[in-house]
């Protein structure tokens, strides 16, 4: 940093014309570059915002469709509970059948 400040000061003191010439060349070039970069950035930002808007729209549509088909979290939980209940009922029926089968066999054996 000190070296850079020293270079800046010395060029100002001993070669002011070259310093100002350099500034004159670099200044407009830098401005041109910055304007180009800003235009590019604006274009990229516009594309990104467009994508973002589309995503938001899609999410909104999905939400609506979920409500229509009954896929809200409440419904999903309810459905899961119903399925669990059905499984338990199935197991109950199955065990009842097995018990009845065993009872029949015992009765046959006793006879």
């Amino acid at each position: 940093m000190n070296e850079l400040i020293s270079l800046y000061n010395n060029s100002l003191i001993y070669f002011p014309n070259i310093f100002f010439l350099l500034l004159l060349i670099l200044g407009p070039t830098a401005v041109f570059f910055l304007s180009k970069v800003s235009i590019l950035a604006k274009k990229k930002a516009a594309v990104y915002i467009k994508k973002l808007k589309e995503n938001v729209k899609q999410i909104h549509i999905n939400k609506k469709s979920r409500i229509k088909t009954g896929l809200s979290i409440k419904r999903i939980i309810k459905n899961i509970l119903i399925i669990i209940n059905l499984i338990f009922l199935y197991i109950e029926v199955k065990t009842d059948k097995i018990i009845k089968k065993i009872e029949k066999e015992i009765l046959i054996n006793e006879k």
Partner: protein
Amino acid sequence: MKNNIYSKIKIAIVFFGIVAVAFFIYLVIEVRNVEDSNIKLEAQSNDYTFPSPGMMPDSKLYKLKVLRNKIVEKLIIGYVKKIEFDLFMADKIIYASKLLMEKGKIDLSKETALKGENYYSMLVQNYNMALLSHEQIPSWLDRKITLAAIKHQEVFKHLENKVTGEDKKTFQIVSKFSKINYDFIVGLRNPK
């Protein structure tokens, strides 16, 4: 059509970029040379040469140069570098005064000598500020300040002897200012 313009702009940017880099390299090399010569000065005894004054005060574009110097003065960072700049300017302007006298332009020479000594007065102020802000003044610069004061007084004496009457008085006053300024610096160096 649009592509053609863009390619031309690209070529222009590349060209300006190359020119800028070339100027920058030149600047770095030249600045290094100046730094080396400043350090070498410490080893030399009484060898003191004035820098070339460049554009003279009798030029039509001299006002532009004065404006440029004022801008440069504002842009310099640090009191030590400001001292260096003031000394450089004082040397240049006092030497220009001598050259103007040789050209026979006595009035302009008097005015220029006063302006040159004014830069030395500014140097004294910056010297004081550097000491107050605890900035280290390099020994080669201290030596250069002393040598410059001696050389300036020699030039003023030389100019004094070339003129008579009121003109002589002006150069005597400038010489007196130079002595006062140098005494002030000596006082700053050795505070009681």
